């Protein structure tokens, strides 16, 4: 399909493709096995300017938007949906600063993130606050010009590896959602440490850790937006970042389809390549159709966000839900096309299936995304009367 990409966007895809094929492909198995953080690949992506894609030039970025980030994440995820996450999760941790940071905060934190010499992370989830973010138990108690943070954030992508963290804590529990506040934290601050690194089903090249705050003293200058704006910061951030997850899912789906069709042409049974059997070719036709539809939705949503549109929640949730469901289905089918070989770790598709699953869960489960979509639909209907 023709998506009318600019020359610069085509260059981004060409470059991300080169990195994925030449640098990432040879090490995906190694990192999937070991679960180590792929700093060598992060360096390659940083040297190639990929970390600055969506950050304004004034802060050392390339001046693009969500679309530029999305096409890069998609291309990298075709080869490894785990390694590409170092970029996508850094964007998730950077968006709050881009959207709500003061000039001073932007000047301080964005340049190294744009260069990729530092990574970022976003901390909202806790043990008892997943889909229900109002259950947050991490507190930030005011003490003069400072806040004292206590609590634990769970399953934080890039945790421990990132230097810059945007986290949400309760400054006034009584006020409920209006009592949450967003803070920028730095690795190494006294009272800020990391818990255990999780052993995951998929995206194993990505670091997932607890953030532990015990009497962590943070200056009020580290607040993003204002005290009490924490949930708005979180929701607006997720609206911007969902296309990134959707792009990761889209890339995984495309990568699995690429492998499946290549295999279906080579694998001979009953004297013919299996692609010549309708049972297989129709599976491939569906996989290609679903992937292309996901791409159209993800690109459209990214362009809407970049146009400066205010209300992007619905489309952003649609893109995330659709692309991640497609990724799950397409990767399962890819394993089926490979048959017994697909189940073996020696072949690439079982990893893609494991990697795909998380995209239906994190940054808002697909059930929560459907709630978001439904709420927007109800709002739209109500405003018609």
């Amino acid at each position, binding site marked *: 399909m023709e998506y009318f990409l600019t020359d610069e966007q085509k260059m981004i895809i060409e470059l991300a493709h080169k990195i994925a094929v030449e*640098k990432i492909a040879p090490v995906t198995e190694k990192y999937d096995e070991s679960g180590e953080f792929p700093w060598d690949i992060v360096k390659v992506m940083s040297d190639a300017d990929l970390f600055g894609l969506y950050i304004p030039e004034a802060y050392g970025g390339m001046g693009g938007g969500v679309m530029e980030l999305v096409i890069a994440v998609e291309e990298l995820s075709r080869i490894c949906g785990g390694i590409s996450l170092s970029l996508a999760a850094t964007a998730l941790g950077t968006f709050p600063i881009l959207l709500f940071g003061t000039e001073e905060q932007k000047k301080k934190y964005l340049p190294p993130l744009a260069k990729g010499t530092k990574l970022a992370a976003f901390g909202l989830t806790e043990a008892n606050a997943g889909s229900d973010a109002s259950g947050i138990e991490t507190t930030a108690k005011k003490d003069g010009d400072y806040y004292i943070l206590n609590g634990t954030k769970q399953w934080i992508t890039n945790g421990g590896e990132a230097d810059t963290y945007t986290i949400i804590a309760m400054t006034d529990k009584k006020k409920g959602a209006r009592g949450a506040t967003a803070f920028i934290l730095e690795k190494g601050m006294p009272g800020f440490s990391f818990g255990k690194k999780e052993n995951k089903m998929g995206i194993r090249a990505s670091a997932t850790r607890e953030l532990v705050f015990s009497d962590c003293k943070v200056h009020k200058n580290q607040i993003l937006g204002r005290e009490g704006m924490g949930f708005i910061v979180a929701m607006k951030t997720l609206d911007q970042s969902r296309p990134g997850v959707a792009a990761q899912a889209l890339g995984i789906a495309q990568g699995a389809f690429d492998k499946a069709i290549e295999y279906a042409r080579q694998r001979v049974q009953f004297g013919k390549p299996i692609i010549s059997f309708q049972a297989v070719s129709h599976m491939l036709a569906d996989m290609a159709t679903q992937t292309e539809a996901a791409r159209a939705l993800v690109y459209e949503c990214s362009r809407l966000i970049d146009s400066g549109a205010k209300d992007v929640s619905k489309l952003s949730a649609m893109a995330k839900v659709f692309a991640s469901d497609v990724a799950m289905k397409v990767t399962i089918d890819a394993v089926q096309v490979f048959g017994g070989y697909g189940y073996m770790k020696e072949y690439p598709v079982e990893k893609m299936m494991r990697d795909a699953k998380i995209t239906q869960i994190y940054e808002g489960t697909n059930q929560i995304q459907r709630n978001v979509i439904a709420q927007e639909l109800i709002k739209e209907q109500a405003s018609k009367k």
Partner: protein
Amino acid sequence: MNIVVCIKQVPGTTDVKISEKTNTLVREGVESIINPFDVYAIEEAIRIKEKVGGKVTILSMGPPQAKEAIKEAIAMGADEGILLSDRAFAGSDTWATGYTLSMGIKKISSFDLIICGKQAIDGDTAQVGPGVAEALGLPFVAYVRKVEEIKEGYIRCERMMEEGYEVIEMSLPALITVVKEINEPRLPSLKGMMRAKKAEIATWTAQDLSAEPANIGLTGSPTQVVKIFSPPARPGGEMILGEIGEQAEKLVARLRELKIV
């Protein structure tokens, strides 16, 4: 430190076919790449520039589409590029190519170091680098696997030998040709690619170089290609199977049969 890197655009290795009619390389529809050994030369030049400052100029001789190869080098981090392109250069052998490139370098005039890949993957002669040095009357070291030290007027490098290596000191300006052990080339950066897209690649003709017509192209090439052919595939050997003793018996019988013993 001004560095000139000589590169060649060659057909992508995996796709090479030989025409049965003309016995020459089929170049139509074949993807072109920078000669892989030259990519190491570009990388080394950029590394030296990053360390001691200066400028990296890419020089190539070839048809107009070779500008693409020069732009790829700029995307990696080279500063500028010049293409020597003229119908009069067609049919150059290694001697004429060396002469033509040397005339280009003379026109660039300000240079401390020239770096070439050790050889091109299509011709495989490894003669052009040293040929350029000879034409310019400069010292050179071929098969460099490491630049140990480089400063104003001085370079110390390691030349790879079949066994071990030699450490060679040389005054600058000079030329080196590099082997793939010297570094790991970087990928282009997005900023580099954008700069390359806008970059103007100067094209110099035979006239611009004041090249001696008798020294360039087919006329200037002492090498005469009489015939190019693909050697016949080597037939598979004969396998003698069985127990050791049995094998020995069979082998002796076979050698007698062939009247070798």
